[in-house]
Structures are given as structure tokens and as C-alpha cells.
């Protein structure tokens, strides 16, 4: 390895989001440009994991100044090199502009999106090269594992994790330390540790980002867990749709093996630990512990009744501890900084931070990590920058497809496991979808239920048959065929499915429906009673468009865009729409230069 001290580091994000918006091309361009200018000895390019601000990708940060460039294009590279790296002048036009103030912010840390975040799980993401174990180690990596294996007993570690108050980040919120204790208490000649990286919620990419951006942290967390419960073998169950995460994790495991951080007698402690990757084939239900283990065993990914719990009888019948990626990512911090430090962050019953994937009708979409107890309002408006087009906030859906929709009234709700459940939602793995006034809540419920219904494993009656019936009812409501009694039937079926389903998928699947009925019953009623969609998004309920003949200038542009030929010429001075033919697509309204067309 060459011992060069570079005057500048260029961190370029190579998370999946930035790669798909061209960061690899930019990197190659940078490489060429630096070579041309003979700067390769002075300036180092570092490929990092996700910065979380995917909306603004590709992202490039130049240190030591910490200047944050966003939405960089290949064509911008020579300017960055000439201006910033040679002349020391910041390229203003590539800086991030705060949506609220329109002000350009040069430094990473001054951007609102990052200011309110507290990064523990994501601490290295975007900062280090995930493919370099040396960079991880340089950032205190494997220090916690070293401390745990050489200075702590398994009991002490479990106590520390218990005291930290860490709860399962995969959604269930079960105390992690207690889970470890159960696995530790089970006597067996063989135990397993499993990392659940079967991130399946639509729009969620917390786990992917951690695996892509900081894979060693997961390995370290798993080594500590293995030592604590007495397991010498682990599996990372990761969905096959995450090729980059798998690739980086593979390399990380190999590098850790090469340095003796995995394998036999780790840190001379006598503790052995080996780690495998198991690729999941894309069934959402395999995120459920028992289904996940069945899948590793080569069986159909179907949940099994508990008890027996995995801690007693898990993978291949042996005691097994399963934690989510983000849970493991918190472990090195807890061991290094102590449980007290960790538990000083957050609320009474929810400690530490939580990573959320912020999406929907919001300006700053991306990955954010905030202390528990941060309010929804802070996330949506301070970090998220408010709604796109400054539309009115309607609801935020948390907890993935099985979560609930929380209305405006609860925007000041501090986020923690229990408060979200109290309002009919849940933490889930950390999906957050922001909705504005143009979103139909019945349609939202239908969207999420369509997902859970088709991802049901089909094993138990209520989930398999019940979600189908609920979906049929939602479909007919959205299509204007809703009947009196449908809301009550949805509520009854929803409660029934929650109460009698075999696994967490069914037990939560009705949440989006029940929470939207709870907070937006009027929208359901409008669909059923008045055959109207208040948000104007349900096609079948939308009324036909009309042309105001006074305003029409007979330009004929509407005719050209109408997909069903519903528009014809009136008496030569204006156009008219045949309501019977109109499908209310709204194309004519958008095209009309004089705003003469509206829905009536």
C-alpha cells in the first residue's frame, strides 16, 4: 500500500441510487480528468455508500472542505477539477439549494436535510469506501468486536445490549437484548445468528444502504451477537434483488476472513465464527423469522406457528437469534460508547435512532436517521423540506405496506414504537410515504393491500382468503360500486384478520385500511354514497370534463390529445366534449392554453 498523503479526497456516492443516476460514469470521468491534469498523486477518489439524499444524486463531497455537490453530471467534472481542485473556488451552481430559502449551502453539515439527523447506523455510509476494510478499521471498525471478545463476557454484552434499550429495527420492536438472552439461555451444541436483510417493503432501502455503504458494521454486529449467545455460525439472508449489497458483503466477509476477523480464534479469544450469505428469492413473507429460516433450509418460505420460538428451536432445529440489519448496525456503537450513551438518545421506551426511507410527495426524498422522539413534522418539513409543489399535507404512511396512515392532526407526534401503534400505524422497518391532498386515501389503502394480499404466503385462512375479500371490496368502492355496509364489513374483516392470522404479515395487513377508515371515513363515504372521489384520483369516479364555450378559443389542441376522440367541434367557435365518451383522463385540461376546460 502506498503511503501518500492526499491534499483532497473526493467522495463519490456509489449507492444504488447514485449509480443508477450515473455516478460510475462521473467517477471514470474524474479519474481521466485527474490523470490528464496529473493530480492523481494529490487527490484521491473514494467510492462511498449511500449519503441518503438520493433525490439529489449523484452526490459528490470534496474534503477537507466538506463541500457537497449534488445532481452532478459527467459534463460538470472538468469544471469541478478546474475550479474547485485547482483554483480553490466552489462551483456555486452545483451546490444544494435549500428549498425553503433558495439559499445555496456549500457544506454538508449545514444542509437542513442532515442537520436534524443523528447518524449511528448510517455513521459510515457516505463517508468511507465500503469495499475497504482498512477504511472501516480506521473509523474505529472492529474495535467493539475486539472489546467484546477480549474484555467482556457474553453475559456482560447481553446486559449492555439490554441496558441500551435497543429494540428490533425490523419492525417488531422486541427488545434486542432480551432476544439475545433467550438464545443464550437455550442449551445446545450448535446455535446460529441470522441477519434479516430481506428488506421487502416497497420504497424501503434502509438495509440495502447499510449493506452497500458499511457492510463491515453488520459483520461486526453479528460477531458480537454470535459471541454473546454462543453461536459459531451466521447467515445473512439478503434478497437477490440487492446485487450490489451482496457483492460488497461478499467482499467484506472475505476481507474480514483474510484478516482473521472471521474464522477461528478471533482476536485470540478462542471464539470461532463463520458467516454465509443466503440469497432470498423475493418473497415478502420471508422477512418473517420462521419463513426466513424455512427458506434458508431450502423449504418453501412459509411461516410456522410460534412457539417454538427461534431462540429455542430455530434454524435446523437449533437455537437461533435473528436480528434486522439496522439492529446489528447499532451494536458496535453500543459496545464502544456504552449503553448509557445510547439510551440517552430517544424516548422513554424507544432508545437510540431510527432510519427512515422518506418518499412520496416530499421535496427531499431519501434516507434519514433521526433520534427516536423526533416529531413527524420535523421529519416532513425540516428534514424533508415540505411537500412538493407546496401542496397541502394530507397524511403520512409509516411502517411499510402493513403500516397505517397518520393524518395532519398527529404531525406533532414524537416518533417511537408505541406512539405509532397508538395512532393505528407502526414503526415497521422504516418506510415513510408522504401524501398530499391529491391522494385518495381509499386508493392508498387499496394499493398497500394489493401488495400484502399478493405477498401473503397463502398458508392461513384469514390472511389468504380475508385480504382477498377486503381487496375486492376496496376495488368496488374505488370503481363506484361500493355498497352500504361495505365500510363495516371492511372493519370486521380487518379486525378478524389481525386477530386470527398466523404471522405478522396477516396480523398487520389490514392496518392501511383500518387506519384510513379511522381518519378518512368521509372519503370512503363519498365514494360509496355520492360515487365521488374527493381527491379526484379514482378514474372510474371522476366526472367527465366540460369546455367553457365562452372561454374556448377553438385552437383545437384538446382534440389532438384526447385519447378517445370525445371532443368535437361545436359551431366553429368552440369545441365540446361528449360526456358519454370522456374517460376523465384530464389530458385536455392540461393542454388547454386558456384554462377553458374543467371537470364538472
Amino acid at each position, binding site marked *: 500500500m502506498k503511503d501518500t498523503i492526499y491534499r483532497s479526497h473526493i467522495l463519490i456516492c456509489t449507492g444504488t441510487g447514485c449509480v443508477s443516476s450515473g455516478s460510475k460514469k462521473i467517477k471514470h470521468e474524474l479519474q481521466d480528468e485527474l490523470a490528464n491534469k496529473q493530480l492523481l498523486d494529490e487527490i484521491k477518489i473514494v467510492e462511498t455508500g449511500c449519503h441518503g439524499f438520493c433525490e439529489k444524486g449523484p452526490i459528490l463531497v470534496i474534503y477537507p472542505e466538506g463541500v457537497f455537490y449534488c445532481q452532478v453530471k459527467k459534463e460538470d467534472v472538468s469544471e469541478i477539477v478546474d475550479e474547485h481542485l485547482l483554483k480553490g473556488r466552489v462551483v456555486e451552481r452545483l451546490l444544494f439549494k435549500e428549498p425553503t430559502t433558495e439559499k445555496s449551502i456549500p457544506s454538508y453539515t449545514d444542509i437542513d436535510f442532515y442537520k436534524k439527523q443523528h447518524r449511528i447506523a448510517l455513521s459510515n455510509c457516505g463517508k468511507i469506501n465500503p469495499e475497504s476494510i482498512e477504511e472501516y478499521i480506521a473509523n474505529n471498525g472492529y474495535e467493539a468486536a475486539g472489546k467484546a471478545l477480549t474484555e467482556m463476557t457474553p453475559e456482560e454484552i447481553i446486559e449492555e445490549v439490554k441496558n441500551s434499550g435497543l429494540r428490533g429495527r425490523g419492525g417488531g420492536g422486541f427488545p434486542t437484548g432480551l432476544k439475545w438472552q433467550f438464545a443464550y439461555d437455550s442449551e445446545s451444541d450448535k446455535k446460529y445468528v441470522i441477519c434479516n436483510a430481506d428488506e421487502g417493503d416497497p420504497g424501503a432501502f434502509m438495509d440495502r444502504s447499510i449493506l452497500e455503504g458499511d457492510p463491515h458494521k453488520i459483520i461486526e454486529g453479528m460477531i458480537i451477537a454470535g459471541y454473546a449467545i454462543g453461536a459459531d455460525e451466521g447467515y445473512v439472508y439478503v434478497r437477490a434483488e440487492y446485487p450490489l449489497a451482496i457483492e460488497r458483503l461478499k467482499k467484506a466477509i472475505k476481507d474480514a476472513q483474510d484478516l482473521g476477523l472471521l474464522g477461528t480464534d478471533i482476536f485470540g479469544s478462542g471464539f470461532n465464527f463463520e458467516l454465509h450469505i443466503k440469497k432470498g428469492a423475493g418473497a415478502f413473507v420471508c422477512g418473517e423469522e420462521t419463513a426466513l429460516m424455512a427458506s434458508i433450509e431450502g423449504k418453501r418460505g*412459509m411461516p410456522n406457528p410460534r412457539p417454538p420460538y427461534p431462540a429455542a428451536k430455530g434454524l435446523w432445529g437449533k437455537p437461533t437469534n435473528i436480528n434486522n440489519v439496522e439492529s446489528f448496525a447499532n451494536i458496535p456503537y453500543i459496545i464502544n460508547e456504552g449503553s448509557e450513551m445510547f439510551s440517552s438518545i430517544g424516548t422513554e421506551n424507544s432508545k437510540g435512532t431510527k432510519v427512515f426511507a422518506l418518499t412520496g410527495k416530499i421535496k427531499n426524498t431519501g434516507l434519514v436517521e433521526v433520534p427516536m422522539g423526533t416529531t413527524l413534522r420535523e421529519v416532513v418539513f425540516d428534514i424533508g423540506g415540505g411537500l412538493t409543489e407546496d401542496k397541502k399535507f394530507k397524511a403520512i404512511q409509516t411502517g411499510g405496506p402493513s403500516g397505517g396512515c397518520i393524518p395532519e392532526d398527529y404531525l406533532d407526534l414524537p416518533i417511537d414504537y408505541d406512539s405509532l401503534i397508538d395512532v393505528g400505524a407502526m414503526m415497521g422497518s422504516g418506510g415513510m410515504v408522504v401524501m398530499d391532498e391529491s391522494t385518495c386515501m381509499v386508493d392508498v389503502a387499496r394499493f398497500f393491500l394489493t401488495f400484502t394480499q399478493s405477498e401473503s404466503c*397463502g*398458508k392461513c385462512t*384469514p390472511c389468504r*382468503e380475508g385480504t*382477498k375479500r377486503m381487496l375486492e371490496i376496496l376495488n368496488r368502492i374505488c370503481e363506484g360500486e361500493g355498497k352500504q355496509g361495505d365500510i363495516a364489513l371492511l372493519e370486521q374483516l380487518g379486525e378478524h384478520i389481525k*386477530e*386470527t392470522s398466523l404471522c405478522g404479515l396477516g396480523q398487520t395487513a389490514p392496518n392501511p385500511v383500518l387506519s384510513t377508515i379511522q381518519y378518512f371515513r368521509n372519503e370512503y363515504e363519498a365514494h360509496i354514497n355520492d360515487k365521488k372521489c374527493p381527491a379526484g384520483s379514482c378514474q372510474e369516479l371522476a366526472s367527465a370534463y366540460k369546455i367553457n364555450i365562452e372561454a374556448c378559443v377553438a385552437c383545437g389542441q384538446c382534440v389532438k390529445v384526447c385519447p378517445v376522440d370525445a371532443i368535437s367541434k361545436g359551431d366553429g367557435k368552440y369545441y365540446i366534449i361528449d360526456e358519454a365518451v370522456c374517460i376523465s383522463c384530464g389530458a385536455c385540461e392540461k393542454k388547454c392554453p386558456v384554462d377553458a376546460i374543467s371537470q364538472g
Partner: protein
Amino acid sequence: MEKVSLIIDDQKVEVEKGTSVLEAAKEVGIDVPYLCYHPDLTLHGACRVCVVEDLDSNSLVASCVTPVTEGMKISTTSMKARRARRRNVVLLLANHPNDCLGCDRNGSCELQDITHSLGISREDVEEVAGQVREVPRDEVGPALKRDPNKCILCGRCVRVCEEVQGVSALQFSNRGFDSIVTTAFDLPQSEINCANCGQCATVCPVGAITEVSEIKNVWHALEDDDIHVVAQAAPSIQATIGEEFGYEPGTVVTGKLVAALRKLGFNSVFSTEFTADLTILEEGSEFLKRFTSNENLPHITSCCPGWVKYAEHNYPDLLNHLSSAKSPQQMFSALSKTYYAEKTGIDPEKIYTVSIMPCTAKKFEKEREEINASKFKDTDAVLTTRELARMIKEVGIQFKALKDEQYDELMGEHTGAATIFGTTGGVAEAAVRTVKEKVTGEELERLNLGFKGVNSAEVEIGDKVVKVAIANGLRNAEKLLDDVRANKSEYDFIEVMACPHGCVGGGGQPLPISEEKKVLRGQGLANTDENSVVRKSHENPMIKKLYEEYLKEPNSELSHQLLHTSYKERAKN
């Protein structure tokens, strides 16, 4: 064993730790309905019909998979439990054809019984009605047919096939509402490694898997005056068919069975036990020859067609260990159109041979291409015990009121050794009885190998020891056979029966079936054997006559032509 006490419906219950709430309730006479639970299979927890309320948490739990805990308070009758149970049944019915009238299981359907007892009406189901499953039926095989649209996805068939039989012919496929139970690549069940044992049909709570019925063909033959219809009833039928007519399990009703068959119009009523005795002579001689020359040992029985097909798929390398003797059914049928025709002067072309079998695999066996030895189709039709009972009921025969009658003599005479063919260990015991006596002149003490999945015994024959093993349930056979394959088997003679407990637990027996019933049925046959005057196959006078007047001697040329067969390798899946 640690005891746990809990309260179910205000009754104090004390049960062993690890007992489920469902079993605990059963112990005090509280019947919680269920569909996916089956006492002989692993717990599944899928139907959620057995939900009860845990009064401490006011939550619903599936009683079949919930172990009792100390101090637990359970209500099986609370409004919450009652409504939830009802709704799950309603949800199942909303995706079920509900065409009970045309269903083979009308009257013996567990879903129908629960629907009735919960008082669920058509209106209840219509409230949630919507799309129903529409997938093709599998009706091409000779033994079993499947209608996945009736399936309620309880998974009993999947579990029995995997756990008890080790075949795994059936599995769940697709997700959510599209889930079905099917075969690999949706192939017809008859074109895969299925043994046709029919255990799936015996555990199916509804009519999703049933035997292919041959009742119509048999009626046609019986109604045709030009056709001479011969019946053979398998050894186990006499101990099981009574259940269809209100007798306690295990009651032996041979005389009434014979009388009923005559009333139905069968021209001759014989017993497959006759050819079971014949099998012993043929197979016994074959074994003796192998044993003395030490070739192809262990000798493995071949009278069970489910086992034979399983061996052809999974142990083709061991087929030379199988006895070449045909099963009693096929020996009987071959003789019915040769020996019997000759003795009675009836044109064999006009003879229609029907066997009454405990078994669905027998329907397949009769269709095997190499099986026919007469110039005709040896076995024309196979009726399961259930099918015969249906015919008896159809014509309104008052079975219990029938006067006992005797089998026709020529091919109805049989010994106690043949009777125990119907239960596990019976064939081995019958064979050793004859072999020992033929070699040494000494009588055999009872072996009593039954009632266990795998068992073994040693029998002294002169100065030699014959090591005998039996297995029932194909999963149980696996280990014995793997040892044979690895050249590690210590046995000389192995009896394999595909179904648990042998033919008394067969795929064609009366439903519902349970471990307890199978034991009682087996005991019924054992008692009949013990009370028989003639208990050794070689002492059957009609068998002696058959050899004297027709076959000459065991393993003669004619025997080989009529009574022996060959096997072929089949694909693993």
C-alpha cells in the same frame, strides 16, 4: 412428567406440559372444531378454525398450536371465539364450490360437518362472496383424482405425503389467494413419483383428493346377464367395512360382507385370502431358494402395489430383491380367468373380475402393462371399501340385519395366515409359518410384529436363524432399504407395507381414519387368525387342490406364467 393446570370454559383441567390447548380441551370432553390439525401429523396452524379466546389477554389463539401454560384461562365459547371461528369457516366456504351434491365426500366431509354444526347459511357466505379459485382438475390417473378447487389448503395431504410416506408428491405452490396444492410442474399425480397409496385421500377433510370411482363400471357388469361377475374381497375388508354401517372399529363382519356381495348380484363371492395363501406358497418357495443359495437377500415382499411403485421410483437398484410373486389380487384375477373358468366351464371372456380392496394403489396395479396373464384383462375393476359401502347403501341393503354367509369354496377357502395379510407384519408371519414348518416340521410361535412402524424378529429354522424385519409407512421403510442399498442390512426377509399399519390403514378404507382405529382393525384380523381352525397357508385344502389339479407345484412353469411378474425402473420424480 410435569403437569400444568389451566381453566377451559370454567372447568379445571390438568394435563401434561407440552399438551396443546386443543388436546387439553378434548381431555375434558370439549370439542373444538378444526380442519388442518391431524393427530398423526405435525402441527400446521393454518386453518384458524380452532381459535379460542385466551381470557387473560383477550386475544384469540389457535388452540392446536398453542401449548398450555400454568394458570391459563381459555374460553372456547366466548363471543369472540365463536365469531372468529365462524368467520374463518365462512371465508373458506366463499372460495369453495359448495356443490356438496356432486361431491364424493358428501356425508363424510369435515368442512360440511363444521358448516352444519356452526349453523352457517348461504347468506353468511354470500356476504363475502367474490372470486373463487378456478384451476384444472387432475383426473387422468387410474387411482386418485384431485380437484384443487375444493381444496381448503389445510396441508394435511402435503404433510402425510412428506412426513409419513417420505414421497413429497404434493406441495404448496403460488402465493396468497392463488395458492394451491399441486405436484411438481403441475403434472398429473399419476405421472410423478406418487405411489398411489391414497394416504392423501384419507386425511383430506374435503373432497379435494379422492379415489377414481369404478362403481358405475361394476353396476354395468352386474346388470348385464351375459356377464359372470366374480368378487374377491381383500383380507382387511372384513375388519373395516363394518364401520360404514355403525359397527365399532375392528368388528369383523365377514359373513355379512359375503351376504352383501351376493345381494348386490355377484355371481361368485370369493376371498383374496385364498390367493394370499397361494402367495405364501409361491413366495415362500422363492424365499427358501434364495435363502439356501444366499442370493438376492434380503428377500423383500411385493404384495403391496404402493410399495412396489415406490421401489421402482426410489430403489430401482433393489428390484431384484423383490419377490417376483404377484400380489394376491393379481394372482386371484389371473386364476379367475384361467383355473376358475376351466373348472366351471364359463367362457373367460364373459368373466368380469372385481376386487374389493382397502387400497387405491390396487387400481393402478390392475392397469400395469405387464400384469395380465390370462388372455384378458385380469382384474376388471377395483372397488375400495368405501366404494363397496356406497353400493350397498345405494340399494338399501340393511347390512346389520344380513344373515352371515360363507365364501364360495373353490377360491374362497382360506387360512388364518392369509387373514393377517391385511395388517402389518402379517405377510412376514404367514410366510415364516409355512417356511419353518416345511423345512423343520415345527410350528412357529406367534411373531406379533405389528403395531410399530418398524419391527424385527429372529426365527430359528433348523440350525439357521432367519432375520425378519417389517416396515409400514414408506418413510419407515426408507432406513431398512438404505441399509440394503449400502450392503449393511442384517435381514433375510423384509416385509414392506406402504400404508401405516398395513392394509387396515389403507387409502381406500372408511373415513375418518385414526391411529386408534387402525390398531383395532388390526386386532380384529389377528383375533380372526387365532380363532381359525387352519392357520397355515400350506394346509389350505383348496390350495392343495389347485396345485394338484392345475399348477402342479410352487414355482412351476404355469405358476410362473400366471402368478409371477417383473418390475421396472421409474423416474425419481
